[in-house]
C-alpha cells in the first residue's frame, strides 16, 4: 500500500512537470483505398472497398491519435472520414481513380495522369494547420506496369502544425514509388529503386530548404526497406552532415536500439514500408519518440486485416534537449498497445509500464 502511494505521488509530480512539455501522437496508415474495379480491370477487388473503409474509419477514430497521415485515400474518402468528422479536421482530397471525375483520353493514355495523390491528413480540432503545401515527385517510374505509380500524381504534403499548447511542428506525409514482387524477384526493379532514391533526395532537399527551429516529422508509405534502398546515404546522413539537424526513425530507435539495417542484408522481418522519421534541428525544439506501435492484432475484422498495410503509431514528446519523454505521457490505454509482432505489449510483465503515453502499474 505504501509503495502504491509513493508511486501515485511520483506520478502526480510527473504530470505537473508534463504541463511544461508537449506531447502528441501520430499514426500513419495506408488505407488501401483503390477501387475494386477500374474500367474492365480488377484493381483491388480484395481491398476493403466501401464497407471495409468504414471499419478503417472506426479503427482510426478509436485510436484517438492527434494526427493521422493517410495514403491511398482514393475512392472511399467519405467512408474514411465518416468517423472522423466529429473530432478531426482534414486537408484536401484530390480525387479518386475513376473515369467519371477524370475524363480519360483513351487514345493517348500515355499522356493521361490522374491529378490525385491519394494523400490525406487528419488532425484533432485542437490542433491547427497554419501552412500547407503539396508537392509532386520529380521522378516516378511505372505507368502501365511497375505498380502504375506514374498514373497518379504521387508526391508529398507538408503541414505546419500548432499543437494545442502552442508548440509548432512540421509534418510531411508521402507515398513513394512502389515495385512489384514480380519485378523484385526478377531483378527488374532497378528503375523503381532509382525513383525511390530520387524521392528520398527530393524530400530531403525540400525539408532542408525550409528547416528552422521547428522539429519535423516524416510519415508515410515509403515503399522502402533499409536493406533495399540506401535511405541512410540518401536521406539521413546528408541531413546530419549539414550539422543543422539530427534524424531518427521511431522504429529503429525503439525496436533496433538505433541500429540501421545495412543495404544488402537480409530484411528485418518486422520492418514496414510505413515509417515515421523525425528531424530535430540543432538548437531548436526536439522531438523524442516515446512509444511506437504496429497494431497488427487490433487492425482486423473477422480474422482478416482491414487493409493491406498495418497502422504505425508513435507518441512523441516535444521540448528542449533535456526532455526525457517519460514525463510527457498523457493519453492512450493499455489495451490498445501492441508490440511489432502484434502482441499486446507488456501484458505479462509486472511493474510500472508506459504505453502509448499512458503510465500504469501491472501487479
Amino acid at each position, binding site marked *: 500500500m505504501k509503495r502504491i502511494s509513493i508511486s501515485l505521488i511520483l506520478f502526480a509530480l510527473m504530470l505537473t512537470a508534463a504541463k511544461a512539455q508537449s506531447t502528441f501522437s501520430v499514426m500513419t496508415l495506408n488505407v488501401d483505398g483503390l477501387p475494386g474495379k477500374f474500367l474492365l480491370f480488377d484493381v483491388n477487388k480484395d481491398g476493403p472497398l466501401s464497407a471495409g473503409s468504414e471499419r478503417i474509419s472506426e479503427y482510426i477514430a478509436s485510436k484517438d491519435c492527434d494526427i493521422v497521415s493517410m495514403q491511398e485515400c482514393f475512392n472511399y474518402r467519405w467512408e474514411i472520414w465518416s468517423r472522423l468528422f466529429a473530432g478531426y479536421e482534414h486537408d484536401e482530397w484530390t480525387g479518386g481513380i475513376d473515369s467519371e471525375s477524370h475524363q480519360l483520353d483513351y487514345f493517348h493514355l500515355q499522356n493521361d495522369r490522374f491529378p490525385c495523390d491519394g494523400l490525406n491528413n487528419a488532425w484533432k480540432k485542437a490542433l491547427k494547420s497554419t501552412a500547407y503545401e503539396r508537392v509532386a515527385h520529380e521522378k516516378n517510374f511505372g505507368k*502501365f506496369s511497375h505498380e502504375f505509380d506514374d498514373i497518379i500524381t504521387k508526391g508529398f504534403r507538408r503541414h505546419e502544425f500548432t499543437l494545442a499548447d502552442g508548440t509548432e511542428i512540421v509534418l510531411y506525409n508521402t507515398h513513394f514509388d512502389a515495385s512489384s514482387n514480380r519485378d523484385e524477384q526478377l531483378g527488374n526493379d532497378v528503375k523503381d529503386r532509382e525513383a525511390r532514391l530520387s524521392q528520398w533526395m527530393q524530400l530531403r532537399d525540400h525539408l532542408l530548404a525550409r528547416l528552422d527551429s521547428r522539429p519535423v516529422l516524416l510519415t508515410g508509405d515509403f515503399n522502402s526497406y533499409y536493406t533495399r534502398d540506401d535511405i541512410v546515404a540518401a536521406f539521413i546522413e546528408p541531413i546530419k552532415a549539414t550539422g543543422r539537424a539530427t534524424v531518427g526513425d521511431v522504429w529503429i530507435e525503439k525496436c533496433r536500439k538505433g541500429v540501421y539495417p545495412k543495404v544488402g542484408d537480409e530484411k528485418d522481418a518486422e520492418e514496414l514500408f510505413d515509417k515515421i522519421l523525425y528531424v530535430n534541428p540543432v538548437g531548436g525544439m526536439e522531438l523524442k519518440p516515446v512509444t511506437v506501435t504496429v497494431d497488427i492484432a487490433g487492425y482486423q475484422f473477422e480474422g482478416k486485416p482491414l487493409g493491406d498495410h498495418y497502422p504505425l503509431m508513435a507518441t512523441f514528446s516535444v521540448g528542449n534537449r533535456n526532455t526525457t519523454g517519460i514525463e510527457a505521457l498523457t493519453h492512450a490505454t493499455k489495451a490498445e498497445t501492441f508490440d511489432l509482432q502484434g502482441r499486446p505489449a507488456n501484458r505479462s510483465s509486472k511493474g510500472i509500464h508506459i504505453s502509448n503515453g499512458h503510465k500504469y502499474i501491472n501487479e
Partner: protein
Amino acid sequence: MKAGMLAAILTICGIVNVNAHANDLQEGVEIIHECDTTWHFGYNGINLYSRPMHRIDIAYPTVDAQGNSIRLSGSIVIPGNVYDGSSPVDGVLLYNRYTQLQPECCPTRGFAEGEFVFMCTPLQPNWILVESDFYGFGITSDHILDQYYVYGDANGHASIDCLLAARKVLDERGISQGKFLLNAGVSSGGYDCIAAQRVRDMYYKDEIKFDKTLVAAAPFDVLTAYSGYISKKNNPMVEVSFALIVLNAFNRQNNLGFTPQQMFNEPLASKFDDWFNSGLYSSSQVADSLKELGIKTFTDALQPAFLDRDSEEYGKLASAIKARSLQVGWTPDPDQSYYYQHYAHDKAVPVESGREFLNFLTNNSHHKKSLIPELTNLTTCMYVLSDSHTISGIQFMLRLAATLTAYPVLYYDGELNTHYYDLIKVGTPMGIIQLLEEKGIDVAGAYSSLTGNDGGGGMDFFSLIATLNKYNERLEEYGTSLTEILLIADDSGLSLTDIMQIINYLNSKAEESNPDEAACRAMHRQVNEQFVGDYYYNSMLDWLKENNVNLNDLRIGF
C-alpha cells in the same frame, strides 16, 4: 511523252560502293519551305476528319544508286498540337511512301494520300513524320523518269539520310522527338522501308535503332514477284501495272535497251511512254486505263519473251534484278523487330515475294515468326479472302495507326509492359486460348461463328482455322485450300501440331454448344482485343463504320 525528260542512264551492275555514302550528313541540310497546313481524311468528297499539321521541307545530302553525292528533298511533318506544345510527342515515324508516277505526288508538294489514313482519324497519333521525296521527286522532279523503283537500297539511303537530316533540324529547333522510332511502308514503300532497314543495319547501327519496322505487301524479292507474274500470266485476277513499272524501271536504270515495242504488246506499247513516263498520270489512273484497254493478264500486256524464263530478254532482266537484290550482303540485325503483313492473294504484289522476306529473316538472323503481337521480333499477319492490293494497303495503314497509338502504352516504361508480357508469354495458340478461357472468354463459342470477314477486307488466320473442319466446304468458296492454309500457318510461325491441337480442342468444345452468332462475334472481338493494338484498330473500324465508309471505295493508288 516528255521527250526532254529522257535522260542518259548509266548501266551499273553489282553492288554500289557504299563507302561513297560516307559524306558529311551534318552539313548541307537546308530548310527550303515551311508552312502550317491541314490534312484531311476524305471519303467520297466528304471530309471526315481534319488535322492541323506543321510541315518543314528540307533539302539534304545523300547518295544515288551508284553512290554519287546528290541532294534530295523530304518533309518533316509535325502534328499541330505537338508543334504548338499542347501535346507531347510520342516518337518519329520514318514513312516510306508508295508508288507514284507524278512528280507532284510527294511529301514536299503536300501530297499525303496515304498518310492521312494513319494520321487524321480520332486516334490522332502524336508522332512526327519524316518522309523523303525519293529521287525523281521534289527538288529532283526533273528526273522523274529515273526514279528508283524497287531498285536496290537506293531509296533506303534516301530515307535514312532524310531521317538524319530531320533529326538535325528538330534538334536545332529544340523540338522533342519523343521516345520511339518506327519505320514503315506499304507496297513499293514497303520495299523501301526494308531497304532503309538494310541501310541502317549495315551502316548506322549505332546512330539509329528502330523500335519496329512495319511492312506490308512488299515486293522484297523482286525476281520472285516477277516470276509469280509469269506463273499467273493468263490469270485475269491480277493487277498488271506493278510488273510494268518494274520492267520499265530496270530497263531504264540498267540501260537494258528494250524499247516499249520490244517489251509490250500493242496497243499498250504505243501508249506506254505517255501513260507511265510522262508524269501526267497517277498510278490509279494508269491502272484504270489498262483495264479500259482490255489488258487483264500479263499475256495481254507483255511480249512473250518477257514471260518466258528461258528467253534472253528474261535473262537480262533477271540479272539486273538479282544484282540489286536487298538480300545481297545484308545480315539483318536480330535486335531489330518487324511486323509483316501480306494478303495471300494479293493481285499486284505476289505473296511469294513477301514470304521470301520472312524466310530471309528467319534463315539469316535470329528472327522467329509469330502471329502473337510483340511475342517475338517478327510478328506476321497473313490474310486471305481479299485479293485487293489497295485494301491491303488501307488495312495496313489502319493497323499502323493502331500501332502508333498502342506503342507508347505498351512500351511506356522502356520495356514491353510486364502485364502484357505475362499475357503473351504463354504464346502458343493453345496457351492463349486457355488463358482467355480462364478469364471467362468463350473462345470455343467465338470459334463456331468465325465465318465472316472482319470489316477490313480480310479474314485473319484464327478465323480461318476456325472454319477448317466445321465449315470445310467453304474453303473452296473462299478460294483457298488446306495446303494454302498450312502455308500461311507456317508464315505465322505455327506448327502443324499447334494447328491440330487447336482444331481438335475447338471442335470438341463446339459440339457442346451452339452459341448465337452475334454473341460469338462479340467474343471474337474480345479475343482480338486481348492484344492492345487491336483495341485501337477496332476503334478505327468502328469510326469508319459510323461514317459509312466502305474501305473498298477508298481511292488510294498503291
